[in-house]
Structure formats: C-alpha cells, structure tokens
C-alpha cells in the first residue's frame, strides 16, 4: 500500500453510505403467515419451497431470541421490518442493457462494475440489491463448463431438483432463531453448483447491497461442489448510513462431496453506525459448510469490519474421512461496534483436520469476542486441530474476549490452541516514525502485519481491498 493511498483513505468517512434514489416495490411491514405466503407467491415458488418456508415460520414462532452472547442491543420489533423490497423492475432482464442504469451506476460507485466493458476480468459477479438479484455476469461462460451461478430465485425456477435436494440440509430451518427467520422469509441470494470434476474457471462473487432504510435483508446462499469439483467464492456487503438499525440475517450453506473444495471469502463492510453507536446493521448470520465427502475441503476466510453488531460463526462439519476445515478471520471493531465471531469445527470422520486463525482488533469503545468450538467426536480417530487466536487492543477502552471451547471424546486426536494479546508498543511506533513513516501509516502497517496470515488467504485483489478497509476503519482511533 503506498503512503499516498493510506493518507487518502484515513481521511475518508464511510464512503458507501449513499442511498440510491430508485422506485422500490415493498410489501407492508410485519411478519405473518400471509407475508410468508406473499413472498413465496411473488417469487412464483413451487409448493415444496412454500412448505419449507411455512415450516420454518412455525418453528420460529416457537423459538426464543438467543441472548447468550451478552450482546447489548435493544429489543428488535419483528413487526416493524419490511420483509420484501425490490427495485421496480419486474422481470430480471435478459441483458444488462435493460437493467435500470441507476442500479448499474450504484454498483459502479461501489467499485463493482457490472457492465460488459468494465467488468472485473476473471470474476463473475451476482449483484443483490435489497431483496433481489439484479444481475449476474459471465453466466454463459460459466455454463460452458457446466457451472451454475445464478440468483437463488432463478435456481428455484430452473433447477428446482437441486434446491430441493440441498436447501436446508446443512442449516436445518430450526437450527437457531435467526436461521429459522431466514428460512421463512429469505428473498434472494446466490446459488452455485459445480458439477463433478470441474474446477470453476473463475472467481465467483456476490455483492450485497442494502438500500432501503426499513428493510431487513435475508439472503440465502447455497454452494454445492460435486465430486472433485472446486470453486472460490467471495461476498462483499455494504449499506447506506441510516440512524436506525437494520437486521441482516443471512444463511449460507456449503456442501462438498468427495475430493471437492470450496473456498468462501467474505469482506463485510455493512454500515457500522456512527461513533456514538447510532444506526448500523445487526449482522446475525448462520454460515455452515458440510464436508460430506472424503478428502473434501471447506475454507472460510472473513474480514469483518462493518456492522453495529456481528454475530456469526462460519462452521465446518467434517464428516468425510480426511476432510479439512479452515477458518481465517480478521475482525476489526471501532467506536461502539460489537463483534462476536468465531467458528465451530465439528470433527466427525476419521483423520479430519482443521485450522483456525483468528485476529481480532479492538479500538475505541468497541467489544470484540472470539468464540469458537472444536469438537472431536468418538469416531474421529486421528483428528487434528490447530487454533490460534490473537487479539490486538488499541486504546484502553476497548474489550477483547476469547472463548475457545474444546470438547474431545477421542483419545487419538490432537488439539492445540494458542492465544495471545498484544498492542502496538510505543517503541515500535517510534522506530517506524524515526524512519520517516507517519503515525497513522505506522499504525496501519502494524495492523495489517498483524493480519497478514489471514490476508494471505484472500484472493489477490481482495487482499489489497481488505488492507485498505482496515486502515480506513481505524481512522481517529489511535493517538
């Protein structure tokens, strides 16, 4: 990162905070069985999906909102949320030329050009605006390889058998309160299917944008890699600045069969609220991957910098023999943000292996917790886990908590956990400064150095992006 770009970055406020002025079709606020039916009807869904939604809704009604994470937030009024909002553009267009130029412009401003001439080379993008997917690039090229990459609504219409086979099989609709809510009302999201033996020829990416102020975002992502298939997928998220809180309750399900691999990366930069904690997204997300096949691999990489509250534990259920789960995370909190994040590695099959690397940076008055579970079941002979959780504290008002649970029922397994807490020392800062490096840049160099092990896991262009994001987020938090 050049010194100029950091200087430029640290002086910027949240630059994705604009609102696109576009006519939106919204349904009335509130949640009921009728609303669930309405969403399903608007999306012209088959009966099995309506049943899935209704079952989830009834389960949700029976469940209680969890409070174990001790996250302080006011009671959410689930009747004060709009569960479906879509830009008024009835049918998804056959060609991008027909997409409302305002939408294309929005994604251009976000640095995600969708138009043919400006596209990111070798990255296919599905753009989701409020509740619906507005465009997916490179679909034809992917189709040549048998790869399906489309919005989940399209997949429901075009590949209902795949949706019925896999949806809800990794995260059951009654898994937890927010997963049940999502299962009832999910509006859109991405679907990826990589057939047997195919290595996906390009990076796949979904870009989520919340635009409406009173809309909840409930997207659902499902990625299936058949035997020997592999894919790298990245999601990015932003939202405008509102002084009210918005709920984002997504569900992501990943499935790998024998020898398949999925690499799932997230750069999360939802609006975090202002420095006094007013506004921002409540990011309550359920992400889980299931290594069903032998020797399969699921890798989660996340850079979490946004949201007022983040509550997510991308997890791996390692069923197949010799399957591998990985979790690499950077979570940065500033001002009044709260992040409670980590992973669960559930070792079921023999010789399964998992690696956890978590880097938490807490600044301002924020609170940043790592919460993880490593569970070794009785059949996981020869399983191994290595976890490393490091915290960096900036200022004496921020909290860093670490809760790494370990549960083992298998004597022939090795579990190792290490954790440390550090800060940026005055001597390190002085050393860099005495070589002509400015204060803020010195801090940002050390922070990105702290996160290096995780950034290495991101696709190249996104690693640089993540690095910039951290510098931006730390503005004014030191000194």
């Amino acid at each position, binding site marked *: 990162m050049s010194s100029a770009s950091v200087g430029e970055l640290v002086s910027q406020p949240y630059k994705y905070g604009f609102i696109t002025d576009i006519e939106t079709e919204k349904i009335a606020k509130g949640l009921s069985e009728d609303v669930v039916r309405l969403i399903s009807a608007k999306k012209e869904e088959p009966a099995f999906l309506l049943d899935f939604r209704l079952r989830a809704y009834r389960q949700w009604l029976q469940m209680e909102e*969890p409070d*174990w994470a001790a996250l302080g937030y006011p009671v959410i009024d689930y009747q004060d949320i709009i569960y479906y909002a879509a830009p008024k553009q009835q049918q998804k267009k056959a060609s991008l030329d027909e997409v409302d130029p305002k939408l294309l412009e929005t994604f251009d401003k976000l640095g995600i050009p969708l138009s043919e001439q400006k596209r990111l080379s070798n990255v296919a993008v599905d753009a989701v605006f409020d509740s619906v997917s507005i465009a997916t690039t490179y679909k034809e090229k992917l189709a040549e390889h048998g790869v399906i990459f489309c919005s989940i609504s399209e997949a429901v219409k075009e590949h209902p058998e795949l949706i019925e086979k896999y949806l809800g099989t990794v995260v059951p609709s009654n898994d937890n309160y927010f997963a049940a809510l999502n299962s009832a009302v999910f509006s859109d999201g991405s679907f990826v299917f990589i057939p047997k033996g195919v290595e996906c020829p390009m990076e796949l990416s979904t870009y989520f944008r919340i635009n409406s102020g009173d809309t909840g975002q409930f997207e659902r992502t499902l990625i299936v890699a058949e035997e020997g298939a592999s894919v790298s997928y990245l999601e990015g998220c932003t939202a405008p600045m509102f002084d009210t809180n918005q709920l984002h309750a997504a569900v992501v399900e990943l499935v790998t069969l024998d020898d398949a691999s999925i690499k799932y990366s997230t750069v999360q930069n939802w609006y975090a609220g202002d420095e006094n904690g007013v506004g921002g997204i409540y990011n309550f997300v359920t992400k889980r991957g299931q290594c069903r096949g032998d020797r399969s691999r699921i890798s989660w990489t996340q850079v979490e910098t946004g949201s007022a509250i983040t509550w997510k534990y991308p997890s791996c259920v390692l069923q197949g023999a010799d399957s591998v789960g990985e979790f690499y995370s950077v979570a940065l909190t500033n001002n009044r943000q709260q992040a409670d994040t980590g992973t669960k590695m559930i070792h079921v099959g023999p010789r399964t292996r998992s690696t956890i690397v978590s880097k938490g940076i807490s600044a301002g008055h924020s609170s940043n917790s790592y919460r993880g579970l490593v569970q070794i079941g009785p059949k996981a002979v020869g399983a191994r886990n290595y976890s490393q959780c490091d915290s960096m504290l900036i200022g004496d008002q921020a909290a860093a908590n670490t809760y790494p649970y370990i*549960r083992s029922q298998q*004597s022939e*397994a090795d579990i190792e956990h290490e*954790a440390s807490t550090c*800060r940026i020392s005055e001597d390190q800062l002085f050393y860099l400064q005495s070589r002509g490096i400015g204060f803020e840049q010195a801090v940002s160099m050390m922070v990105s150095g702290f996160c290096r092990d995780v950034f290495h896991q991101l696709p190249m262009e996104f690693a640089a992006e993540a690095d910039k994001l951290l510098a931006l987020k730390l503005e004014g938090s030191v000194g």
Partner: protein
Amino acid sequence: MVAAPLTTSAPVAAPVHPWVAALLGALPAPAGLRPEITLSARAALAAAGLPSRRQDDWRFTDTAPIAAVAPQLLAPEALPELPPVAEGHHRVVLDGRPETLAAIAWPAGIEVLSADETRDALGRCLDPEGKAPDWPVLLQGACDAPVLALRVRGAVSEVLELVSEAGSGPGVLPVRVLLLLEPEARLELLQVHRSSGANLTSALVEADLGAGAELRHGVVANGGSESVLLARLAIRQQPGSRFALATVSRGWGLVRLEPRVVQSEGAAETRLRALQVVDEHQIADTHSRVRFEGPEGRLEQLHKVVADGQGRSVFNGAVVVPRLAQRTDASQLSRSLLLSDRARVDTKPELEIVADDVRCAHGATVSSLQEDELFYLRSRGIGAAEAARLLLRGYCQEILGDFPAGAALWQAPSFSGGPEEIRR
C-alpha cells in the same frame, strides 16, 4: 452454542426441588454467627433447586451425583485411620462439630478470631463482583457450618494441615474456613478432603491476603465413586502478596473446584496449578476465575487433566483484566491427556480484556501420550507399559512437585506408580 441464561431466582410459585426441600427440612435452626445469612441462603437455595445443565456454568457437568446423596447433614462417625502426621505438619481434623475446633492448640503465629471479628470478616472475600451467589455457596451457607476463623501473623514455620474426612456415611459435610493473613504473614496450608461413601463435602475457604503476605495452599482431594466434593476458594490479594494453589483430585463421583481469586489492587502474584484425574464414570470440574482490580498483577495457571475410562473432565478458566489493570501479565495453559475413547474432555478458557498494555497468553492441548516420546523410551529398551508409566508420572509430577513434602503421605501410592495404579 445457544444456552438459556443463568438464573438463580425461580418464579415465586415454583415448587421446591424435592432434594432441596428434604435437605432444608433436615437442617437444624441456624445457630451460627450470622443467622440472617443462613436463612437467606436457605431461601435462595429453595428457589434455585439443583444446578441444571441448562445453566451455562453447569453445561458440561452432570449433577446427578448430588441428588444421589442423602439430603441431610452427615452424622459424625468414628474416623477411619489417618496417615501419620508428617514432620513439621500441624494437623487439624474438621468434622463439622464446633466443639472440635474449640479444643485445638495452634502453632505460633496462628490465632483464632473472636466471634465479633469473625462476624465482621466472614464473606468479605466471597462476592467481589456483586453477583448472586452460586449454587455451591448457597448450599454451604444453608448448612450453617461452624467456621474455623484464623488470623496469621508473621511466618508460620509449620505446615497447617486441615483434614476433612467424610468417611463412608450418608449426608452433607460442610466445611468453612476463614483465613486473615496480616501483611507479610506467611503460611503453608495443606488441605485434605477424603471420602469413601455416598456423601457430599461442601467446602468454602476464604482467604484475605494482606500486603506482602504469602499463602501456599495445597489441596489433596481423594474421593470414592459416589462421593461429591464442591469446593469454593475465595481469595483476595492485596498488592505484593503471593498466592500459590496446587490441587490434585481423583476418585470422586463428582468433584467441582472453584478457585476465585481477586487481586484487589493488582500488583500481586497468583499461581494456580491443578491436576484432575478421572476414570470410570467420574466427573471432575474446575471453574477458576481470576480478576485483576489494579495494575501489574501476575498470573501463572497450569491446569492438567488425565481422563480415562468413561471419565469426564471439565475446565473453565476465566481471566478478567479490566481497564485499570494495565501491565497485567497472565498466562494460562490447559493440558489434557485423553487416555480412553470413552472419556471426554471439555475445556473452555475465557479471557476478558479491556486494558491495552497487557500480556495475556493462553493455550490448550488435548491429546494422548505422545507417540514420539513413547517411541524414544522404547527405543532405549523400555517396555511400552513402563514407558507410558514413566511419561504419565512425569506429566503429573509437574503439579505434584508443588506440594509440601508431607503431602505425599496423603497421596495414594499411585502417584509414584503408573497409570494402572492411578486408576485405582
């Protein structure tokens, strides 16, 4: 990972849990120093019932062994033979009877507190964070145990040995100790809990360490397959004080040790070392919590587990470093040996840090005996069983070495022996 919030207050009309109701019915009217506390503990216990796995603090711990104990106070009975008193040790047997305490001669430097002093100091270290009392504390309070309350001045040359022997009878044996260490006082304490029957030892030790005081506290806990031990250690440390705890527990149907240390102004040293051995259907649970209320405190914690048979081991180690505790240096290491496929280990460190200039490291490992170490010994001609025995002994020795030499008399010969012997 979703669990119900911990509640100790039940709805008003809820029926009292039958075990609790029976115990409360069997307890005599309060006769201790603070009857109002005894009564409020009984009321709270009635409301709370038995601890449940729905409570976060008891999630991994099956409390059925508690309910299997007869809900009554343990009747004093003839003590089984105790090992000889080691040289330099001063032994006191706590059998739950006030008259036993009155008859003891104390070594130089130790004196019994007056009733007023005791009343004043009792409970001072117990509730530093102002939370509702936990279940073991409620139980202990309800039982209204006679209090052994001592003041320690200067360096006590003898090792004070406090023995609670529950024997084989049914019921609850409450043990309550209060220690006030004056500034610069030094005491070596060896506490022994023994049981061979279906009974419950409810122990509560409060220790207030003045500036520069030092308490070396060993706990040897040997129980039987139906025995229960619930032990809370509430320690408050003034600056410059040193607290070194070494515990070894084995054989209990259920043992739960709760060391809670508060460095009231930081700048003290805390060392916690523990070895818990489980086999058969035994459950051993340690919930430790160390809180730094001022700068420059130090903690060194090593928790070791040997889990065999269908044993369950739980370790929950909280370290709390608030903003005013700058330059805290804390390390926590949890090492578990899992020797059987039917045994289970749950480990949950909890680090809560709000100060930026601190060093807090923690680590955890769960594994079997190391193959390469075994191989190394075998390649030198040592048989597999012997090699395993040597390794296990070395593993345990790191903790056992922290006890006063006289403690060896209380350790069953097993600890100088091999894994088979440890199982017995």
